[in-house]
């Protein structure tokens, strides 16, 4: 049961990263001197949630995914691995770098610097879009296992 919970934690942290990114985006649209503390806290939350998703998902991928991979490749949806997992596992690095970069930008004086605000808005937008793509790819991978197991049952 613990292994399954570990797997569920991965998309959960991803969703929390999306929510925190939206929080940063909205706060930045209204950046003032008195909400910079919240922006910085939220940006660190984004990085922390993405790192947690990376560590938890990475642990599961390295230790347990081999079995699922064999099931998917033998089933009717082999592309769930060959396209979705192969893309997800490598695009996640770009997402992780964006998440780590966000606090660096957010610790600028956003109330005073329009360029820094613009950069925060774009980085959070990219994080949300990439995170949604990761969630979608994860759904395809899970479905790939499901249809393969159903096919085995005849």
């Amino acid at each position, binding site marked *: 049961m613990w292994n399954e919970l570990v797997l569920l934690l991965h998309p959960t942290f991803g969703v929390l990263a999306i929510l925190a990114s939206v929080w940063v985006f909205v706060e930045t649209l209204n950046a003032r001197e008195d909400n910079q503390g919240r922006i910085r806290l939220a940006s660190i939350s984004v990085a922390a949630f993405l790192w947690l998703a990376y560590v938890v998902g990475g642990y599961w991928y390295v230790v347990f995914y081999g079995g699922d991979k064999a099931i998917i490749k033998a089933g009717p949806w082999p592309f769930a691995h060959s396209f979705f997992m192969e893309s997800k596992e490598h695009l996640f*690095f*770009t997402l*992780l770098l964006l998440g780590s*970069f966000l606090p660096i930008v957010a610790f600028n004086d956003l109330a*005073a*610097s*329009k*360029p820094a605000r613009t*950069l925060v808005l774009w980085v959070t937008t990219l994080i949300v879009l990439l995170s949604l793509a990761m969630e979608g790819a994860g759904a395809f991978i899970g479905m790939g296992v499901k249809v393969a197991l159903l096919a085995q049952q005849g």
Partner: protein
Amino acid sequence: MTPKISHPTVERDTGSQMDRTLGGYTAGFSLSFAITSVLSALLVILKETNKETVFAWMAAATGHHWVTHGLLDLIVFVVLGMVLAKVGGGVRMMANALVATIVGATILSGLIITGFNL
């Protein structure tokens, strides 16, 4: 009373060219992100098309090719970011150009990785 927050590397909105640029660390790590992201995508092609050499070395280095890939990305991102921040890489670029570089690198990385896996 709310303390006033300021950042020494960011200029204020007054309309000059300096106001459309970003501070040293922000500019440096912007470029570092863009470069690392594209290099990471190219490494996917390199390791997947050289299973006996690059892939095998990456797998042997940490026990799993994906762990090595992630470590290399993080090392390049941090080291390159620190170096570029130190030498002022990107500080003369307009903020819009840096934003375009980041967005472009993200899209290019996505296209390289998904295109290769199609």
